[in-house]
């Protein structure tokens, strides 16, 4: 039955995706827990959240036969259950076991698609977990629940965990209340959420019990079990609503209380600023579906261009009134399309923070391996990038950071000798710059050792003479294919991964990478990326009889140049643009197409730039601006420098889109 096999295959994919999400959330929660483990004052919701994560993972893994993951999560869940029920205390030892279990779970889930299995590691961690469970067992001076005077009806719907929370609240000396409210069936989740937020500020919401409202069945009642130090009156004022009653539940304590001291009611002005989002409001979307949506929007954009053109032709042919109306309709369509386009693009954007978290794990791992002390500082984790771009730069970024630790940051002893802090710092930052996003990796290590680089390049025959290399040119050597400065036989940096591979990977998403170095002080790698790859505005130009598109984001300006202003320096054409020299490029010679346009006295030059590099592309004609969708031209042409794809112009013409970054690299290296 292929149908059920397909279903199973899809289900496994869903499981792995969900498992990854659970693990990400667990990692975040564990970090939160380790912060409060010291003070011993952990938010019970946090402990519960970690427990539920392991619990879900266990259930899921069991269903799909991932026995190692299931076993590990099962044992982890037991430990966490003991933790949340207060049977085991949360100390450094326990935190250590939790972190290690998490790391192993992460590897197992990521390797779950393949044959990856590590039975001995699992057995070891499980043993440690169980040791932890038994060692930390607290003597539980349990005060039975029934002595509290809480009605059986309320107790009967409490899970074991909620019972524990109830006991904890009484142990802390809090009073137990029942807050009863009635809500409209249409909006109860929001209304209840708001009420719970208010209550949470002064106590703990232990459980929420729904029951049918009276009347026509349009309402729903909730009985909230609540623990707080505040008095009945204070709470009543706090919740400030009709249909809400507050009753004290723990009878024994009630009888003991004489008169509550008159306290001022707490201010409730912040009810207005409530954002009651106590449950997830997100939807998981397959990125392929988003690609499809983008394509459709792209086609719509082309339809719109056709309509605009028709309007123009109608006007020319004398149907001016109709043409005017069509134009107006087209403009309105254009506005809506822009909004739609923006909307779809925004769905694909995710914050780079996720990537940064991954990097911090890598920094910890590699610095430990290398015996170096490194701290990773991150900035701009909120900056957003297209999901696919983030996925594609994850590996290059990892290699850059690896290089930084391997070659840049010195050993603690060497750093001390130089008067530096024993702990090296890698500063990972991200920010938006116009239509690009920049990711910076800066370390305070020894910088690039230029002499070593030049020597290596000579040895490998990449250059013949190193005497006249400028610093910039020497740094560029690092990007040459086959270059690697590791002189250890066991290549810790990873075999054959040089900056050339990093650069290619980044170029594949239309980005650029640059290195700056200060000897003895450190090194900075800058990655410049487009925010998104999908629909872009482009300048349409012709050169040597062919039409090309240049992404507007790379275009700085267009100028007219007279032949007499063109100077030749070292066999390359340049002009003076304001106070700088601008190298020129003729597409004809770059792409080796015969028939150069050298006969004109004045021509257009499109000044393009990415990061700090600029170039003037000589063109025959400027045809205008247009929205285009860049489509890949396939594997065969992938290595072709200077072209990033092709686009449909709408009138059945297909043109090539220039890869400005690639052209600039080639041209400024002297190959153009």
């Amino acid at each position, binding site marked *: 039955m292929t149908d059920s096999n397909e279903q199973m295959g899809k289900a496994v994919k869903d499981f792995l995706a969900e498992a990854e999400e659970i693990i990400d959330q667990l990692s975040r929660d564990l970090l939160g827990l380790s912060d409060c483990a010291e003070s011993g004052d952990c938010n019970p919701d946090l402990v519960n959240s970690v427990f539920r994560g392991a619990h879900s993972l266990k259930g899921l893994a069991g269903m799909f036969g991932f026995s190692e993951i299931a076993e590990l999560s099962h044992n982890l869940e037991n430990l966490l*259950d003991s933790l949340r029920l207060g049977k085991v205390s949360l100390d450094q030892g326990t935190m250590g076991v939790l972190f290690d279990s998490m790391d192993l779970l992460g590897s197992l889930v990521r390797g779950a698609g393949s044959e990856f299995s590590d039975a001995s590691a699992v057995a070891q961690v499980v043993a440690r977990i169980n040791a932890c469970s038994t060692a930390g067992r607290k003597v539980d001076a349990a005060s039975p629940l029934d002595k509290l005077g809480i009605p059986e009806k309320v107790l*009967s*719907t*409490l899970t074991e965990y909620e019972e524990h929370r109830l006991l904890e609240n009484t142990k802390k000396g809090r009073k137990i209340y029942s807050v009863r409210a009635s809500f409209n069936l249409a909006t109860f989740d929001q209304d209840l959420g708001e009420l719970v937020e208010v209550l949470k500020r002064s106590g703990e919401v232990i459980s929420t019990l729904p029951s049918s409202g009276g009347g026509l069945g349009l309402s729903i009642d909730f009985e909230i079990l609540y623990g707080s130090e505040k008095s009945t009156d204070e709470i009543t004022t706090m919740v400030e609503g009709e249909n809400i009653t507050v009753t004290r539940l723990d009878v024994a304590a009630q009888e003991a209380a004489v008169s509550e001291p008159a306290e001022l009611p707490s201010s409730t002005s912040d009810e207005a600023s409530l954002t009651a989002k106590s449950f997830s409001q997100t939807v998981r979307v397959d990125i392929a579906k988003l690609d499809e949506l983008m394509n459709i929007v792209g086609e719509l954009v082309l339809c719109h261009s056709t309509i605009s053109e028709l309007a123009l032709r109608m006007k020319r042919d004398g149907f001016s009134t109709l043409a005017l109306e069509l134009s107006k309709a087209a403009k309105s369509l254009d506005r809506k399309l822009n909004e739609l386009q923006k909307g779809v693009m925004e769905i694909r954007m995710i914050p780079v923070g996720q990537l940064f978290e991954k990097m911090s794990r890598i920094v910890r791992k590699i610095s430990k391996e290398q015996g170096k002390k490194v701290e990773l500082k991150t900035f701009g984790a909120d900056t957003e990038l297209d999901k696919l771009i983030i996925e594609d730069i994850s590996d290059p970024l990892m290699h850059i950071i690896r290089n930084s630790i391997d070659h840049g940051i010195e050993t603690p002893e060497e750093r001390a000798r130089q008067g530096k802090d024993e702990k090296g710092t890698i500063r990972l930052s991200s920010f938006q710059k116009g239509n690009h996003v920049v990711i910076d990796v800066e370390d305070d290590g020894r910088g690039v050792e230029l002499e070593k680089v030049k020597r290596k390049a000579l040895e490998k025959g990449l250059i013949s003479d190193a005497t006249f290399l400028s610093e910039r040119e020497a740094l560029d050597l690092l990007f040459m294919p086959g270059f690697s400065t590791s002189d250890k036989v066991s290549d810790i940096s990873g075999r054959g991964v040089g900056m050339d591979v990093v650069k290619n990977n980044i170029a594949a998403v239309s980005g650029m990478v640059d290195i700056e170095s200060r000897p003895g002080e450190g090194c900075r790698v800058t990655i410049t990326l487009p925010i998104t790859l999908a629909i872009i505005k482009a300048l349409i130009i012709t050169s040597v009889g062919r039409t090309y598109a240049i992404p507007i984001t790379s275009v700085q300006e267009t100028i007219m140049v007279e032949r007499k202003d063109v100077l030749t320096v070292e066999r390359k054409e340049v002009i003076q643009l304001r106070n700088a020299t601008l190298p020129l490029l003729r597409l004809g010679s770059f792409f080796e197409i015969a028939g150069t346009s050298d006969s004109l006295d004045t021509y257009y030059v499109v000044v393009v730039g990415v990061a700090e590099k600029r170039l003037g592309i000589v063109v025959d004609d400027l045809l205008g601006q247009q929205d285009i969708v860049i489509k890949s031209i396939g594997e065969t042409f992938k290595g072709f420098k200077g072209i990033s794809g092709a686009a449909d112009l709408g009138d059945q013409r297909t043109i090539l889109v220039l890869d400005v970054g690639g052209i600039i690299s080639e041209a400024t290296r002297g190959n153009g």
Partner: protein
Amino acid sequence: MKKILITEDSATMRSLLVSTIESMDGFEIVEAGSGFEALRLLPREKVDLIITDINMPDINGLELISYVRNNPNYQTIPLFIISTEGSEKDMEKGLALGANEYLVKPFNPARLQELIRRYFR
């Protein structure tokens, strides 16, 4: 067609339950990703069977069972609990509150199908 309400916060688990039930004839499914969603769906869909997990974020399965069993409109609807091993005390409470059957995760699809058929003979 009999309508079955599935209340379960794990999307993967939900889709497993769905595929197990859909491979039987004569049943259609309504999905709720949380207790709150179930509360919203019940007045709108005429449900013939409810399957619920116990550990869920907003209201837990026990509270859902209590709600259902205390409402004259839903009192007689058969109710199954599907929850993970280790929550025996919670399972017992669920049965005491009026649930009809319970299944332990990882659940045996054949057993679930058998139980469902039994209730609709």
